[in-house]
Every structure is written in C-alpha cells, then in structure tokens.
C-alpha cells in the first residue's frame, strides 16, 4: 500500500491537498493501491473529502483507525436521531435547532453545513448559559466525540468513541507557556489491541499510528510525506521499516530568489538533518530538484546523495483531454486566476496590471478564485476600489468544482512571486486557456512555452503583462490558436506521461530499502 501523508482535508484546501487529490486519481487510474492518510480529528472530514470525490477507501484518518470507524455504513441523521425527551420544546432552524426546557436554553443542535437537518454537533448549556459540553457527530451519522469545555468555553478534555460508544481515546489540553493558547498535550489511547498507551504529543501518536499501519498491513508499504512538519517528522521517527519519501509541495528555502544559499524553509530544517533515513525526495519541477542537489553538495553526512525524482504535481485525466474546450468565441471577456490568496501570490499586482487592461477592454472581468485570510481579502477590495476597477473584479472564493469557471474564461493569469508548482495553470491549459504569468520559481517556465500556449513575462513587468492580456482578449484568432496550443500542451500531464515519472522513483518496484 502507498500512503500519502497529510494532516487534514478541509473544506478549503491548499495545493498540498490538491496535489494529493490529483495523485490519488492517477494511482487509481493505474490501479495501484494508495490512500491519503490524515492525522487531525475532524468530525466533518469525510464530508469534506466527499466534496472532492473521495470516499472512505481513499482517505484513512488516524483517529478513525483507533476509533474503529475507517469503514462505516453511512447513515443520515436528523433531530429525531437524538430522541429528544418530550420535556424539551424544539425551535427548528436551518443552521441551528434549539431545545428549551421552559425558559431555559438546554441545548443547541448545529446542523451539518450543506446538508439538510443533519447533526454536526450538540452544545449543552448550563444554568448560567455557558456551553459546558459539545458532542461531535461524524458526518457519516454517529456520535464520535465529546468535548468538555472550560470556563472560557474552550475544550479542556475530549473523549473519542468507538462506534459502539465505548471510549477509544482521551485528549487533554494545556495552556501554552505564554498563556495565549491552549494546546493538546496528553493523549490516552485506550484498550488498543488490549493495551493502554500514553502520548505527550500528537506527533508521537502519529508515529505510533504509522508504525501500526505499517505492521498491520502486510506487504511493502510506502509512505510519502506531503504536509511539511506534521507528517515528515513523525514519519522519520517510525521504528518499523518501510519506504519513506519526502514530497515538496512548497519551496524548500526561505528566499525564492536564492534557493541555494538562503536558509532552509523552517519547516524543512529538521528533516534535512535526517535525509539518510529517507529513500528519496520528490520535487514537482526539475529546477527545484537541481537547486536541492546543489545545496546538498555543501551538506555533510550520509543523506547528501539521496535520490531526487521530479514528478509534476499536475495530472490531467483522459476524460478531460477527450473533452473539446468551449470555443473562446462563445465566451465573455473573462480572465481567471485560481490559487491561494496571499501576498506571495502577487494578487495585488494582478489587480494593478488588470487596471491597465480595463480601459482598453471595457467589459473585461477578472474572476479571482481561492481562499485567503479576511484582512488580505479586505485589502484587495480596497485596492480594486482605489484602481477604480471594483466593478471589474470578482472575488469568488474557493470552490471544489472549478471547471465551470475555467470554461467561462478566456485567459488564465498569475502574478505570483513564487510557487512549487502552479497546479491551476495546468488545469487552465486543459480547458484551452492560454496563460499569462511571470517567470518566477518554480513552474511557469516548465508549463508555459512563451508565445505558444501563453506568455512568460519578466517579473514585475506589469505593463507588458497587461498588453498580452489585452492582445488575447481583443485578437480573436490569436486567442483561438494559443487556446488550441494550450489544450494540446495539457497532454504532457496525462496519465501516460506522469506515470512514467512515478516509475522512475523506485516507489512502485517494491524493493527493500537499503
């Protein structure tokens, strides 16, 4: 079995998760057993996974494993499931249903987002109106945990159940030394294979879990750590033998302009001291692999000769390649960007460049897809207003199914300062959208052939960037030709090509590690 190690699958996911989703789709296509492994407890984890087309066979969560709920017959829940005693009067709501004992609010049933009337959690109120207990319901239809809340309303103790209601784990919280936060600091694993176990950190528990997984599942197992820190360190500490790989979903060094000499990205400092314990590194671009090779030449120790394989993070399924893109002549003048919305993605510069496009193309609209923190989103709204293009910019948030947005746009744009591999660019190509981007580390150079399937601009050249967008929006023939090239270039990321890369890693050969 091949395990892709991650921390969580959320409702809004970053490229770490999206790379895994595409990789899993590819492995399924090639009929090789693989699963995404997640560490965090999340009662809605399976609901989130389902929105990305993943089922219980695709995702293995650590807590599910210990709770015995990895393979559960899903049931829908409703207020009726709780068998609320008749002394409580229910006030139904779409998000929350409240239960009153006379004038006193006794408990609140929080309904699952996106589902009608199902139970996500139940908050119990005390005599003074504080929430003192919260029951968490798994989206698959059973009560999976209880949180006991402290005087601030934060959990101090959590009890996680088996499906029959018996206790599987207890987790306890501690106030951090600076008194600012509360963190999990103690884990009791109860009666697991007849024994009780005590862990001080979730990393230790995760390591124990990975070792158990490795021992319980026969045959050669492979672990690929995707999420930095949360998964690579626990994987390093495993006691049992397995093939272990580190995958780089982000840049490995702090300064994207100088990836050879600048300090390592803090997330990777620890793991780079123990490369000898790994079977290989995987990057998504040849340039990042080279930079790491040069860096390792200066490093001492056994790990410096570790094998580095390059596998693009993108994967375009054959279904997509068989689907002819929507003709640009049927589209409005929409330009799309998709990706996490952060300062490193240069979204502010994208707005500035687009402000140069609007006067020339008065009906141009920039469709921005992705999530970011609220302060940054506010700053984008403010900037668009200042640039007087507020009516031309749509911040449409994160969506699990982005295909319709690509099909409605003519051009994909990105002003990112850095990336490990811009997945969305390849998705855009596969919908026949030419790409305009800055030539920064890493990815654009590998994905875009300048003047063929898009334009590769000098970083910071906003004027030039805008001119190319204007040209694509106004010259129908150029857009049509480059769109066709874009669609053709997406074939470089089809199963045949990407799988060939995977075969070179040695992961699939099943050999013992040295």
């Amino acid at each position, binding site marked *: 079995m091949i395990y892709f190690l991650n921390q969580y699958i959320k409702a809004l996911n970053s490229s770490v998760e999206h790379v895994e989703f595409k990789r899993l789709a590819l492995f399924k296509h090639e009929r090789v057993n693989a699963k995404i492994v997640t560490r965090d407890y999340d009662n809605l984890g399976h609901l989130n996974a389902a929105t990305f087309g993943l089922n219980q066979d695709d995702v293995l969560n650590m807590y599910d494993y210990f709770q015995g709920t990895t393979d559960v017959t899903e049931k829908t829940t409703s207020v009726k499931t*709780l*068998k*609320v*005693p*008749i*002394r409580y009067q229910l006030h139904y709501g779409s998000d929350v249903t409240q239960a009153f*004992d006379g004038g*006193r609010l*006794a*408990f609140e049933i929080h309904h699952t987002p996106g589902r009608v009337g199902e139970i996500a959690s139940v908050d*119990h*109120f*005390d*005599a*003074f109106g*504080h929430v*003192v*207990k919260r029951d968490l319901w798994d989206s698959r239809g059973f009560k999976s945990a209880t949180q*006991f*809340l*402290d*005087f601030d309303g934060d959990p*101090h*103790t959590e009890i996680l159940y088996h499906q029959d*209601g*018996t*206790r599987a784990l*207890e987790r*306890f*919280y*501690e*106030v951090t030394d600076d008194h600012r936060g*509360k963190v999990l*600091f*103690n884990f*009791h694993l109860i*009666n697991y294979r007849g*024994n*009780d*176990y*005590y862990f*001080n950190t979730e990393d230790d528990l995760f390591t124990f879990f990975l070792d158990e997984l490795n021992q319980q599942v026969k045959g050669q197992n492979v672990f690929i750590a995707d999420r930095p820190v949360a998964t690579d360190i626990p994987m390093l500490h495993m006691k049992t033998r397995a093939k272990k790989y580190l995958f780089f979903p982000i840049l490995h060094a702090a300064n994207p302009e100088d990836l050879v000499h600048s300090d390592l990205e803090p997330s990777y400092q620890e793991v780079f001291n123990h490369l000898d314990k790994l079977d290989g590194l995987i990057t998504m671009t040849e340039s990042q692999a080279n930079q790491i090779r040069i860096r390792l030449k200066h490093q001492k120790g056994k790990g410096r000769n570790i094998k580095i394989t390059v596998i693009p993070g993108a994967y375009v399924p054959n279904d997509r390649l068989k689907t002819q893109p929507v003709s640009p002549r049927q589209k409005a003048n929409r330009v799309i960007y998709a990706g996490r919305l952060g300062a490193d993605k240069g979204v502010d510069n994208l707005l500035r460049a687009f402000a140069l496009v609007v006067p020339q193309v008065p009906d141009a609209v920039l469709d921005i897809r992705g999530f970011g923190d609220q302060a940054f989103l506010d700053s984008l709204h403010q900037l668009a207003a200042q640039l007087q293009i507020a009516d031309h910019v749509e911040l449409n948030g994160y969506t699990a199914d982005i295909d319709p947005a690509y099909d409605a746009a003519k051009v994909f744009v990105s002003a990112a300062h850095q990336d490990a591999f811009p997945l969305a660019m390849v998705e855009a190509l596969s919908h026949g959208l030419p790409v305009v981007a800055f030539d920064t580390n890493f990815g654009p150079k590998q994905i875009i052939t300048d003047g063929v399937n898009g334009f590769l601009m000098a970083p910071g050249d906003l004027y030039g960037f805008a001119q190319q967008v204007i040209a694509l929006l106004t010259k129908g023939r150029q857009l049509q030709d480059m769109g066709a090239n874009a669609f053709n270039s997406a074939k470089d990321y089809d199963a045949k090509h990407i799988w060939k890369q995977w075969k070179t890693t040695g992961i699939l050969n099943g050999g013992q590690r040295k």
Partner: protein
Amino acid sequence: MYFFFDDNISFKKSGIEHAEIKRLKLFNEKQVPAKIITRQLALDLHDVTADAGISDDQFVNLFDFFQDAIHVKPRKLTIHDLKMPADAVLKPEKEPTKTDVYVGDQLVMIVGQKSETDDRIDWVQYSGFNGRPVRMVRYDSRGFAALEQFYSYGTQLVTEQILKPNGEVAIQRYTQPRGDGTIETSLHEVVNYHGQDYDFATFEDLTTFFLDELNLSTGKANVLICDRAYELAYAVQQMQTPIYTVMYLHNNHVNSGTDHMHSDFNYNYEYMLENRRRWDGIATLTPWQYDDFTERFGKVKPNVYMIPGAVTDQAILDRPHVKWTDRNPKSVIMVARLSDEKQQDILIKAWPKVLNAVPDATLDFWGYSNGDYDKYLAKLVDELNLNDDIVFHDYTKDIGAVYDKAQLLILPSRAEGLPLTLVEAQAHGLPIVASDIKYGPRDVVTDGKDGFLVESRNVDQLADRIIDLLSDPKKLAAFSENAYKDSWHYSADAIWKDWLPLIKDAEKNGQIPERIEVHA
C-alpha cells in the same frame, strides 16, 4: 411501596437516620414494603448501609438508580486488578497508601488505596508528562470506577462523570463560575437513560426527576415520607407523578418553645410549612406537638398524623433487666450530638454543685460534634476545673452497652421533636432528667416516677434533681424499674397503631403513576 426520603446517610448518623432505620425495621415486621432513599453521591455508601444493616433491596440512592448500581456484588479491587499501560513500572511512595506508576521516566498514574490496612483502590490519578493531573478516577467501595473527574490545566475541577459498573456514563456534572465568580455545579446531565439524555440546571430538578422515575418504576400507588424538609421539600413538591407525600417533622416546627400559635417557623420547616397545601400529610411526633400543630393549622389539607419516630425493638423490651449492681455507681451520661440546641453547657455548669454534694459522681458525654461546639465545651470544662471529672466520647455504634452501664441519663436540650436517646435510654432502664421543652421529654418521662422534668436552662434545678437521685440509690433503682415498664409505650405494636391512619389515607388516595413519556 413506602419511600423514606433522606438527603444522605453516613457512618455518623443523626436521630433522623436512626429513626428511619427503626421505621424500616418496623415496616419489615409488619410486612409493608418500604425503602430508604437518599440523593447524595457517596462512594462508601454501601459500606454505610451494610454497617447499618440496611439491605440493598431496601435502599435506593439517586446515583445508584441511574448508575444501574442498586445491586452490585462487592468485589475487592486492588492495584493488581487495575489495567496498567504497557511497560508500566510500579514504585511505592513514601506515604504507604500511594503507588506511582511509571512508563519510562514518566509518571502516568498514582494509585491511592483506602488506608494502610485496606488495600482496596480508593482513587487513581492520571497525569500529563509535566506531572499535571488531567483525570482523577474514584472508586466505589464495591469495587468499580464510579466517579471520574477532569481538571482544566491541572488545577480546576470542571467536569465529572459518574459511571456505571460496566464503565458506561450515567451522569455528567459540570461546574462554572457564577456572576460573582464563585464556582458551583451548573448542570447535571443524565446520559442515555432509556436512550435519552436529560439536562438539569439544578440538583433539585434532577432530584425531582429521580423521584418521578423511581415512583414510575414500581408500578404501584406509592407513599413518600420525607424526613428532611430544608434540603428536600422543593424537589418533592415539584413531582409530576401521583404519590402520597408526607412530611415528617423531626423537631419543634416553630422557634418559640411557648407560643406555638404566633411564633415564626423553625427555619428548617419554614418553606415547607408555607407550602404545606402542596403536601398530602404531615406527621408530628408527639400528642403535644399534634395538638399545637392542629390548633394553628387545622387537621386537614394536609392531613395531620401523630406518629412517634422512635420504635423499641421487641428483643430489647424482652431482655432481662440489667442488675442494678452491674451498673457503674453514680454514673451519669448524656447521649447527643454536641451542639448548641442540646445545651451540654447547662449540664457542665451544674456539675460543680453535683460534685459538691456527691463527690464520686461521674459524667460522660457521647456523640459527635456539630461544628466547633466541642471546643467551646472543652473550654468551659477547663474553666470550671472539671477535666478530671468529665469525659467526652465520640459517636459510638454500640450505644446500648453504654446505657446498660450507666445509672442516670440527662437531656438538657432547648428544643426537640422526640429525642431517640430518651426512648432508648428508658428501654435500657435508665432514669432520666430532661428539660421540659417542646417536644418529647414530657411524652417519654413521667415526672417523679421514672425521672424528672426540669426547666430549660435552670442550672440549679437540674443540679438539685441529679443530687436528689444520686444521693438516694434506692429511689434511683426504683425509677429504673419504672423506666423499663414505661418503655413499652414505644413497642412496635404500639407505634404501628399510630401508623394505621396514615396507611389508610394513603391507600384511599393512592394512584398508580402512569408514564407520560413513552421511552423509545
């Protein structure tokens, strides 16, 4: 079924618990089904009931009821029965009742046993890696984990779970600070009771729920005799299911010892008396109290009964009389809680005068102290230079032996209902000198025949009556014989006659409770 409802029962019992136990015995003799019920959580409760001779068939505690732990066969659970983490190493602590459990160099558990000689597990504390307690598990004396306590950040007890013998959760309790910052229990939740969860903002609400569920569970028309008004009246009054409710007055119900018509209520009974119309019956202890009560409140709504709380075992009545020569000469005793209303201080103040007249008289006090009253008495004894003459003893289980060795019993109380000690002492042939207060002494003691009644707080009169008896051993012995005779007033048959009106009314008015909620 008759339920005798009390707040709690412990090793040291007050007159109320003794009265309940005697009453239970009486009902058993008369073959009328009855149970004592209590509501406080106590992990040694079944040690207490076993010690008091109350069988599990005749006892229901609120927590036991929801824990499915009314009948649990006790088993001895020691540290060797405890599930230990893999690779655990046990290290005894300096304190011999504690054992540390290490995994590697980390302390994960501390196990506490009941005492140095009793190695049953009392509690287990679980710690995080920095030594902070995260969880405390306390054990029922019958040998199962019964109470689980969770601490937030090692310091504050926030959440508790009360567990069934099979480990399932029966009840959860939560604490929170009130508006003024004081921390108190703010929610009780009965978990998975017939598949449903019930939240109660107060312990009173939970108590009412318990009473209703208990009432329903018998499927018969039941009677509830409530023995504590201050603690329990509210919960009984809120009951939803039909049951014949009777409040038993265990003391003078008003503050004044003279003006029963206008006096303020005794604070213990004030709330209940204001709400008396919500009750089916009220039981007074003596004819005098019955007359005072009915003169002020009438005989109906609620129905008023006169039922002495004391019952003397037939076995005691049938015993041969203790030979007068077997008793310690001039031994005077008082058997009562050390407390302000029992007025031990009056007896102590009278004692120098007694000693002056009868130098070889001895005085022994028996009973546990309420609050710091023992310290006050000790100081008084010291001031009067009586340290060599007066001895204090703690509560004893075998008070019968004490009665059999003494020659005279004193009760100088300020207020009473029907003091058990008088009835018991009389049954053991003890002459009595008691203050003539409301209520009780006048009903037990026949002045000048088996004892003397004296004015409350009259030190000289009390001393004179004691001197009178101690200096005339023949008279004292004659009073003793009279005491034996008079104690037949409190035989089971005599008292049962007083119960019959209540039982008749309860049968007439009794309704079988019906469940309004259909459990899924």
